[in-house]
């Protein structure tokens, strides 16, 4: 243990540096711990409604992959399977509400009603559907055997929002209009998504409401004691082959599940990058510290310290800093998580109609954070420590104390190139874990190859620096060019920071910019009449063609087009969305952004055997123009030829097929409109028209109307709310980059204290020293920016690609503004980071600087 006091004395001897190093670990740990502490709350929010169906004692769930309905008689088939003791059928279906129709007392908009249709004749306790999945009854009664009429259980907030109690009536939207239900019981509040209200009713009532006679979408079963689960599943598989799932409901193509996946991806990336950054800073600090202490270390060795002792001393130093940093970081992480909840909570409430729970720090979060918080720094210190142990006693006799850089080794080049290839391979692999790993390897490769290219880059900027900073600029450039490795390490933190900024910024820009562009391309009409909300799902209750006819004949209406939709299975047994359009009017009023093919495809749709698929469909199933796709129709398989690939705003996240409405009604039995896009005649009185439109939709429950301006404003609002949260996190990530740069520059100055003293002795003015340091910093920043931009652009392309796995097909858009911002931010960072070191350098007292050991 004699190394420990030695280690502590070194750390105490360089307090500023020790603090800077701890700070870098703190930020990495804080981000990792904080974000991971927040994650469970978000997950709860998203999962709350999906999991409410999954009951613990149920062995078997039969659903269709897309959540669609099937014949209730299948229950009997399941019951007949040997070993299945009891069964029940159920309906779980979301129905959209028009905006601001129902609200909770807190003003949260109830945007969806999740209808639970329950078989009230069920006797098996395992299916506690009768007790509404175990929710507590506050007043009234639960559903009882014999209930088949229009009775419903609702939650407390919903009842309070409506101002009703037991025995009173609530109107729910159905296929045939608003249907009055009697409230027989009030339940405690559900999970977190208050904007998504669950209502429980007899299965017959649900079938009526949704106009799905004798249809259900879930069958549950319980196995008999000691039965062969595998045999049962085998039997089930043969009964429900394609298009069915035999496991708890997975939410199908739910918007939130995609979002959740996306958020997890981003959180993990943030944490990893922040810690990688901390590791880098740590590595740099220790490497310098070892170099600086060569003479000390040589002396230690000369007076009898073994290599092992030297190595351990350095490792102890790393460990002490890592422990302090990790503990502090975790404390701040808790604060960060609570702060983020306070800051982001309101955004989430308005966006999603839910409240975020308290941050929760699970054992795994602790374990992972501690492992990385201690592990990354220790690994980073390993190399410098090894370097230190290789210092010979002779070094103590040498007069120079600054790193003597040897020529860049060939092995470094080779390892660097291999890492680059591996990193890029990982990045484009398409598997998230590999992509994350690839990203780290890629950054490592940049770090390895940095020194090789830094000299050429430096000489490239040399002239500019000379013009800007005169002699000092030349000196600065010389300093950098002569110590490429040090320069490379210094730039890396900025590079990584910028890479993250540009990568995430570019991706977000693509998402929001792209989304608004699609919006423009696909919804150009003055008004949109829509069933439910903009996000139309299979359960959206449409309007019969009469509505469109009424609107068409309305004075002041110039033109309109309608859209219908249904979700079906394709030849791969995967749920896809079919959109029925009226090609001529759709082409006039709406439209698609074409990836392959062009507008002429609309005409070809009318032939009846051609379709347009969206980008998501094309990439997911690997089809392009001219290919044939097969869809499961009502009574047969239908082959359709792909005429074009295009995108629209509303359906970009799902595999979608656009076809003529005639085909949709003939083959899929869909006749109802879910969207009606209306163009007003120029110069018409908009207020009159709006009044007429409102009157027309009066009898169509769930139908709403939104003007183009409102739509834009609301979508922009959504985009803005999303970016605020992201920007906070981006800023948090930029902070360690700045710190890293400042740290590295500061160390460069400390390392050269004597050199600077000597410069001052032979005639460098304070200002000159300052300018030299700033010039150096700027040059390093430029290099960091050049590297950061390159890798950031690559990252943003990749991350945009990752989004596709989360279900959003977004064409990459070049983050032009982001780039300029990043360059500016990078240069600013460089100058800011240099200010303190430059001050320190110019303020050095010559005599003591010369005596600095």
């Amino acid at each position, binding site marked *: 243990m004699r190394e420990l006091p030695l280690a502590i004395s070194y750390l105490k001897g360089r307090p500023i540096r020790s603090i800077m190093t701890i700070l870098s670990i703190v930020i990495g740990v804080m981000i990792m711990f904080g974000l991971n502490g927040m994650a469970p709350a978000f997950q709860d929010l998203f999962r709350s409604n999906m999991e409410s169906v999954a009951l613990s004692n149920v062995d078997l769930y039969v659903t269709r992959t897309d959540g669609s309905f099937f014949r209730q008689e299948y229950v009997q088939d399941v019951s007949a399977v040997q070993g299945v003791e009891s069964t029940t059928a159920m309906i779980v279906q979301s129905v959209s509400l028009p905006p601001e129709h129902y609200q909770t007392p807190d003003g949260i908009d109830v945007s969806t009603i999740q209808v639970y249709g329950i078989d009230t004749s069920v006797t098996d306790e395992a299916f506690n559907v009768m007790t509404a999945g175990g929710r507590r009854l506050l007043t009234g009664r639960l559903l009882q055997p014999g209930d088949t009429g229009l009775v419903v259980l609702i939650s407390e907030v919903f009842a309070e929002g409506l101002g009703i109690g037991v025995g009173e009536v609530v109107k729910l939207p159905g296929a045939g209009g608003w249907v009055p239900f009697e409230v027989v019981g009030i339940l405690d509040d559900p999970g977190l998504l208050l904007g998504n209200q669950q209502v429980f009713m007899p299965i017959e009532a649900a079938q009526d409401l949704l106009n799905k006679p004798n249809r259900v979408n879930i069958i549950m079963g319980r196995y008999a004691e000691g039965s062969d689960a595998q045999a049962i599943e085998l039997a089930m598989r043969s009964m429900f082959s394609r298009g069915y799932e035999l496991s708890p409901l997975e939410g199908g193509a739910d918007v939130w599940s995609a979002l959740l996946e996306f958020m997890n991806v981003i959180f993990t990336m943030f944490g990893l990058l922040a810690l990688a950054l901390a590791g880098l800073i740590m590595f740099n600090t220790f490497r310098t510290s070892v170099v600086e202490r060569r003479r000390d270390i040589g002396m230690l060795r000369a007076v009898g310290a073994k290599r092992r002792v030297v190595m351990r001393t350095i490792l102890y130093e790393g460990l002490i800093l890592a422990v302090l940093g990790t503990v502090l970081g975790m404390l701040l992480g808790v604060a960060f998580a609570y702060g983020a909840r306070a800051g982001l909570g309101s955004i989430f409430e308005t966006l999603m109609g839910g409240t975020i729970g308290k941050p929760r720090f699970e054992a795994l979060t602790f374990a992972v954070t501690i492992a990385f918080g201690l592990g990354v720094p220790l690994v980073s210190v390993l190399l410098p420590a090894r370097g230190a142990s290789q210092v010979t006693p002779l070094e103590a006799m040498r007069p120079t104390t600054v790193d003597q850089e040897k020529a860049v080794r060939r092995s470094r080049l080779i390892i660097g190139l291999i890492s680059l290839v591996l990193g890029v391979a990982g990045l484009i692999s398409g598997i998230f874990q590999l992509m994350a790993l690839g990203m780290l390897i890629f950054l490592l490769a940049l770090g390895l190859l940095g020194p090789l290219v830094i000299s050429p880059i430096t000489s490239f900027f040399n002239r500019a620096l000379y013009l800007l900073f005169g002699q000092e600029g030349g000196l600065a450039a010389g300093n950098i060019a002569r110590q490429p490795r040090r320069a490379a390490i210094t730039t890396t933190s900025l590079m990584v920071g910028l890479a993250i900024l540009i990568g995430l910024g570019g991706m977000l820009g693509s998402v929001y910019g792209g989304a608004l562009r699609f919006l423009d391309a696909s919804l150009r009409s003055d008004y949109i009449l829509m069933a439910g909300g903009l996000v139309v799902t299979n359960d959206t209750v449409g309007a019969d063609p009469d509505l469109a006819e009424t609107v068409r004949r309305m004075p002041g209406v110039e033109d309109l087009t309608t859209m219908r939709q249904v979700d079906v299975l394709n030849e791969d047994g995967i749920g896809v969305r079919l959109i029925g359009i009226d090609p001529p009017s759709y082409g006039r009023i709406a439209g698609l952004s074409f990836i392959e093919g062009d507008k002429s495809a609309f005409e070809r749709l009318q032939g009846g055997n051609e379709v347009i698929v969206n980008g998501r469909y094309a990439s997911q199933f690997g089809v392009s123009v001219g290919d044939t796709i097969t869809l499961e129709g009502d009574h047969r398989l239908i082959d359709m030829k792909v005429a074009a690939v295009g995108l629209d705003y509303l359906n970009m996240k799902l595999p979608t097929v656009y076809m003529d409405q005639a085909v949709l009604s003939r083959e899929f039995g869909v006749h109802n409109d879910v969207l009606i896009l209306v163009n007003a005649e120029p110069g018409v009185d908009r207020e009159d028209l709006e009044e007429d439109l409102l009157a027309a939709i009066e009898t169509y429950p769930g139908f709403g109307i939104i003007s183009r301006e409102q739509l834009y404003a609301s979508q922009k609002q959504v985009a803005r709310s999303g970016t605020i949260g992201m920007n906070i996190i981006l800023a948090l990530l930029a902070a360690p980059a700045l710190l890293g740069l400042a740290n590295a520059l500061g160390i460069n100055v400390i390392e050269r204290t004597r050199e600077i003293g000597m410069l001052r*002795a032979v005639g460098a003015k304070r200002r000159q020293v300052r300018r030299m340091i700033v010039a150096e910093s700027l040059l390093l920043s430029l290099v960091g920016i050049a590297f950061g931009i390159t890798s950031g652009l690559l990252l943003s392309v990749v991350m945009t690609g990752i989004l596709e796995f989360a279900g959003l097909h977004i064409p990459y858009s070049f983050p032009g503004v982001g780039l300029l911002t990043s360059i500016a931010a990078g240069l600013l960072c460089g100058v800011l980071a240099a200010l303190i070191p430059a001050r320190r350098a110019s303020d050095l007292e010559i005599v003591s600087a*010369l005596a600095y050991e």
Partner: protein
Amino acid sequence: MYVVETENLTRIYGSGAAQVTALDHVSLHVDTGEFVAVMGPSGCGKSTLLHLIGGLDRPDEGMVRIDGQDLSALNDDSLTDLRRERIGFIFQFFNLIPTLDALDNTALPLVLGGMKPAEAQSRAADWLEKLEVADRKSHRPDELSGGQRQRVAIARALVTEPSLILADEPTGNLDSSAAGDFATLLRETVDRWGRSILLVTHDPRISSYADRILQMKDGRITEETRNNIDRKAVVVEDHHA
């Protein structure tokens, strides 16, 4: 006018009980073309004296005049200019910037003074030539021998053609023959190029090359001896002409 003139130069380090009077009312002068050596036991204030004369540090009392210019009247920048133009430094260790090669190290003061690098380098090359290390000009300090390093240091000290050279134990890490060579070089600097030298050394063989030796003890000059050097007939090249 003397190149260097000090009056009651005093430097006190620390305060209270830990107070050390490193320099105690020292008055001395160095003539143009004079080589003065300062000797004395360790800790007697030799380095402190040199630092004050070189304007690297400020005295607590007394004053320093370089070519008649009172240093206390100068701000940091003018002091730096004066140092760069009129004084050349040679230290025991760490004379050279490790990352710069011999040529760039030599050219450094000129470059700092704003001279075009090309011109600064050609002048630096001349001095390296004169000091017979021209063949090492693209080597970095760690690739030079101790003696070569000190030659480069002299070249750097002379490159701005200063009137005064201050050297603090410049031969401290040289073997005796290299130290002898070095002393000869310094003597030549005075005789051929007309510079003045104030040199701190422990080595009597080095001080024997000086015109005058000042003995110090406890921050004071206690003794002054003149060497009667047999000056060879050397033509003095006057670079200021």
